[in-house]
Structure formats: structure tokens, C-alpha cells
């Protein structure tokens, strides 16, 4: 069949370009809004994704990755002795203050891990060497956080909480859109920065009339002079020090669900999460329990609605402009099906020709933004496909709306001047 749809579209090029610009705008809006939403969601769990641990063990009180209570190192030692555990490493994770030599101080999140461990690694080290974190009071920062931390190169010495810190390396792909910058350091260093003056112990008692021993973790503050200059190197962690997570690698044959149960039984007041469970819990928290998740979700929804309205308008007015042609086709015997096909074909052309440049544009924008700001915008292959589907549905939906107009046209219109 002669493609009336395509030829009608291309007949008036300026008009066509304006219409396509509208669709491009709508598709870009959806892509960027959902991209920001996904970038945000992913940034909340980036830390989890950077770990190769099978299980994350933490306090029963965990709400999401960054909101949990500490557990004592003694639990880490216990975990290593649980059969089925191939490896267990501690992760210490808490907020602190950052005082650069020049410029304003900043709120940061210190992440302490074992630099020679296997279960957590910074995603990409672009400057420096992981081994250097074994040195006392050394840290690594993210390149994209240089501005907010007022540090632009390695070798700079700053103060973190009450202790000095030397920037010995730079990483990439570890920044977060919603939270404070990550500072990476060794577990030992982190312990010195974060836990100076805090200690924990497990207290157990036998309640009256019960044969079950009940234990709780207790933390206490020890009086220490503030702003203490480090007299020596950070000490090794002892059983009463506290950490935030125990990262667990299971033995190859071990079933994760049973290992989870075992860990929860053998350790005190902990819950074990698989990587996926912790990701879900954290994402859900940010998406559903915080205003930012709601706002970004709303933005994405508004993007879709504006897209539908813009596309409907364009397609509807295009069909209205050609109404007499559709009337002529109907008079000459074109069946309803043939006319639907023409309108839907036009909608599909508009969808495809609006989608492609919009995607190129959005990938370009994402590339530029992500290079400068960290992973703010995520357009995955899945979301690109989903947005294509949304674009098609949007255009077909508008086409159905436009078809109503053709259906209602008075067939005698063909004789009207």
C-alpha cells in the first residue's frame, strides 16, 4: 500500500520537525526523569554492589544500609567459626566531620574495610594504591567529591573528626547523589576515627523461670580528652570494638538460606541479608519512605503524563488536518481497518523518529553529567527498551484517540468545499 502516513508526515517538513521536537522533548523528559530516579536508587546501594559478599550480617535493628546499629567485633570472630563460612570480613561505616586545610568543613561517611580483604573493594582506583591504606591515618576519596571536600590532589593532609588524615588515593564510581561523600580507609584507621572512646560488651543474663540465656550488646562511652593528637598508630581491633557489617562469603556448596539461619542463631542479635535482600530493603526505603524517592518518582510520572499529552496533541492535530483525506478514503471504500492502519503507521513513525534522537540526546547528557558529577543519571538497556515501549504505547494510545475523530467524521464531508 502507498504509505500515505509517511508521505503526509514528510509533506510539510518544518511542521514535521516541530512535531518531532515535541515528541523528542517528551521522550527525553521521561528518560531523564526515570534516569535520575534510577541513578538515585542505584546510588543508594552502590556500596552493596561493590562487594562480593554473599551475606551481609548486621544488627537486627537495620532499617536500610546506612541506618543500623553497630555490632561488636566478637561477632565477626564468631562468624568466622560458623561452618559454611568461607570468609568473613568486617565493615565499619559511620558519619564524621571533614576539615580541609582550606575551605569549609564537610559532613562525610567513613567506610572502613580490610584493604587486603576480598569482600569489599573500592570500584575503581584511579590514583594511589590500595596497600597505602595500611599506613596509619590514610584515606582515599572519590574524584567527583573533590569539590565538596575541598581537596584536589593526593598528598593533602586534612583532619577527620579529631585526627589527622592524609589523602593517598582517588577512586571513581563510588559517589552518592543523596548522601555525604564516602571516605575510604582501613578498618583499623576507621576504628581510630570513629570509635575513639566507644566500647561494647555483650551482657547475658538468665531471666527468672527461663532456661534460655538472653544476651544483648551494650555500648559504653569512655572518657577521653577530645582533640587528642595521635600518640601512636591506630591499634588493632579487639573483640569489644564495634563494626557495622560482617561481610560473609559462603563455602561454594553452602546454601545461603541455611547459612543465614545458622549465622542468626550463632551470633547475638543479628540479621543476615543476602546481597539482593539488602539492596531491595535499601532501595525500598529510599523510594517509599523518603521525600526524595517520592519526588523523583513523581517527576518520572509527570514525564510520562506530559509525554502522553504532547504526543496526543500532535497526532490528533495532524489527523484533524488530514480529516478530509480520511473522509475521501472512506467514501471511496477504505475499510475502518485500512484507516486505522494508516493512523497507527503514522503514530509508529512519529514514535520511532522521536525516540531515536531523544535517546541519543539523553545518552549524551548522561555521559556528560556522569563524567562530572558521578552516576547521577542511569539509562540502562532495560530502561531504554521500557521507554521505547512507553513511547510506542503513548503514540498508539494517542492514535486510538485520533481514530475516534475519524470515526465520527460525517462521510458527506467529502463534498464540502
Amino acid at each position, binding site marked *: *500500500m*502507498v504509505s*500515505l502516513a509517511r*508521505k*503526509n508526515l*514528510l*509533506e510539510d517538513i518544518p511542521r514535521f520537525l516541530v512535531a518531532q521536537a515535541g515528541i523528542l522533548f517528551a521522550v527525553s523528559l521521561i528518560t531523564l526523569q526515570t534516569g535520575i530516579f534510577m541513578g538515585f536508587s542505584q546510588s543508594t546501594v552502590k556500596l552493596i554492589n561493590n562487594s562480593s559478599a554473599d551475606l551481609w550480617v548486621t544488627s537486627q535493628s537495620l532499617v536500610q544500609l546506612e541506618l543500623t546499629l553497630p555490632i561488636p567485633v566478637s561477632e565477626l570472630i564468631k562468624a568466622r567459626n560458623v561452618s559454611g563460612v568461607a570468609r568473613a570480613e568486617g565493615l565499619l561505616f559511620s558519619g564524621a566531620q571533614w576539615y580541609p586545610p582550606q575551605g569549609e568543613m564537610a559532613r562525610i561517611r567513613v567506610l572502613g574495610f580490610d584493604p587486603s580483604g576480598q569482600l569489599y573493594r573500592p570500584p575503581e582506583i584511579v590514583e594511589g594504591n590500595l596497600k597505602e591504606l595500611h599506613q596509619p591515618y590514610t584515606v582515599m576519596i572519590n574524584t567527583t567529591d573533590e569539590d565538596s571536600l575541598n581537596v584536589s590532589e593526593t598528598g593533602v593532609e586534612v583532619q577527620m573528626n579529631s585526627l589527622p588524615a592524609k589523602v593517598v588515593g582517588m577512586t571513581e564510581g563510588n559517589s552518592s547523589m543523596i548522601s555525604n561523600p564516602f571516605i575510604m580507609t582501613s578498618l583499623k584507621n576507621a576504628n581510630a576515627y570513629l570509635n575513639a572512646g566507644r566500647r561494647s560488651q555483650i551482657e547475658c543474663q538468665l531471666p527468672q523461670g527461663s532456661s534460655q540465656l538472653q544476651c544483648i550488646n551494650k555500648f559504653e562511652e569512655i572518657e577521653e580528652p577530645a582533640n587528642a593528637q595521635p600518640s601512636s598508630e591506630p591499634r588493632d581491633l579487639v573483640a569489644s570494638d564495634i563494626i557495622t557489617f560482617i561481610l560473609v562469603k559462603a563455602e561454594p556448596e553452602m546454601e545461603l538460606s541455611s547459612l543465614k539461619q545458622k549465622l542468626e542463631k550463632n551470633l547475638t542479635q543479628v540479621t543476615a541479608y543476602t546481597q539482593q535482600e539488602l539492596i531491595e530493603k535499601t532501595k525500598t526505603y529510599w523510594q517509599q519512605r523518603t521525600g526524595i524517592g517520592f519526588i523523583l518518582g513523581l517527576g518520572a510520572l509527570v514525564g510520562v503524563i506530559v509525554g502522553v499529552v504532547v504526543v496526543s496533541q500532535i497526532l490528533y492535530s495532524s489527523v484533524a488536518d488530514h480529516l*478530509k*483525506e480520511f473522509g*475521501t*478514503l*472512506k*467514501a*471511496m*471504500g*477504505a*475499510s*475502518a481497518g*485500512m484507516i486505522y492502519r494508516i493512523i497507527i503507521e503514522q503514530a509508529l513513525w512519529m514514535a520511532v523518529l522521536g525516540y531515536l534522537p531523544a535517546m541519543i540526546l539523553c545518552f549524551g547528557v548522561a555521559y556528560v553529567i556522569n563524567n562530572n558529577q558521578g552516576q547521577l543519571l542511569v539509562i540502562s538497556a532495560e530502561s531504554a527498551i521500557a521507554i521505547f515501549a512507553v513511547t510506542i504505547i503513548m503514540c498508539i494510545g494517542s492514535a486510538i484517540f485520533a481514530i475516534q475523530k475519524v470515526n465520527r467524521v460525517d*462521510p*458527506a464531508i*467529502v*463534498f464540502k*468545499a
Partner: protein
Amino acid sequence: MLFQSSPQSNFPHAQSASQISICAEHITMFFRSGRQEIPILKELNWETNRGSIALLMGPSGSGKTTFLSILAGLLTPTEGNVYLLGQEITKLSRKKRTAFRRQHIGFIFQNFNLFPALTAAENVEIILNIKGLQGKQARYEAQLLLEQVGLELYGNQKPRDLSGGQKQRVAIARALAGSPPLIMADEPTAALDSQSGHQITELLRRLAKEKGTTVLIVTHDPRIQDIADYITYLEDGRFKPTN
């Protein structure tokens, strides 16, 4: 000249049905205007034979286009029946009427109603497509039809590059697509200068005679009277006898 006086009895008669191409019985049409129902056509009876050229004339607003639309099955009359080629089309569903038009009726309009985005050849081709001819065959047939109206060299032109007379010839080629036994034209020469008008009239006459097509032309144009087998005058929704 044939006037309205068709038999009042049950149509179609076995004998006349083969001869009669278009037959309208007791056509009455009201249009609603606000709360009022305005009668436009009043109890019209009309018929024409196969292969003849019939003219419907009358002043502006007399109801000619309305009557034509009813005969073509584009409008449903308030009352009355229309038989085309022996088939009562007023009884058919919308879908079947569309299919009937596809198979049996070619249309010509005062303002040509060409598709501006398509070339002359494509304008013809798309109608052939609708009628079931596709691809190369349709392109070839479109070329033949353009030859019949003397436009074989203009197939690649868009309507905006053609003169009024040429446009109407493309429209005639399009109306001839699929060789329908009926052609209905509303003021086919009204938008043309007198020379093109004359050419178009002549073309319609020749084609009707060569192919045995029944042609119904609604017109103001007295020049067309020469080619007509029958002329009917419509005034105020009624047929008017003349000399």
C-alpha cells in the same frame, strides 16, 4: 428526458432491474437545526439506466449534494430506499455499504480531494490498493489509468504542480480505478476554467460511452447539458419538470 415517475410498486422488477442502475424511492431527508427538523428532500423518486449520463441540476441549497450523498450510501435518508445495481443499499450495514462503494462506485469532487502528499500516480495507486491491487501491478495499472486521461507524463508530479484541469483528470483516473460501474460526480467542472471544464466534460462522456459506465453528475454548469442523456432539476427539495 426522464423524470421522477418511477413505479410506485415494489422495486426491483425482474425485467427492469437489469436495465436500471440507480433507483431511489420516496427519499425524504430532514436535517436537524437546533430544535427544528428542516426538510431538505421531499419524497423523491428517481432512476437512471445503465450506461447513461444523468445530470442533476438546480440552484444552490436545493439539496443536490445531499441527494447525491444518499444515492452513494454516504448519508442515510430519513425515509426511503436506494437501490444500486439491484442491491438495496439503504438496508446494508455501514461496513457493507463501504464495501459496496469500494467495488462499485467511483467519485469525483468539485475540489478534487487529491492527497497533496502523494504524486499523481500514487493518488491513483492508493485507491487501487484499497480495491485490492498491490505493488507493481497497482503501479502499472495506475500508469494505464493516467494514460486514459492523457496524463501519462505527469505521474510523478504532486497535485500542487498540476493545473486545475489536470488535477481533475487525476481525480477521474482515480474514479476509474477498478472500473466501477457507477461514477458519481459533484460539480466536477465548477472549479475549472471553461476550456478545462469542456475537456473534463468531454472526457467523462467518452469514458462513459466506452466503458458503459453509469455517470451521475451534479452540476450548475450549463455546458455539461450537451452530454447528458437525462437532466433532472431539483428545487427546494423537489423535482421540477421543465420544457
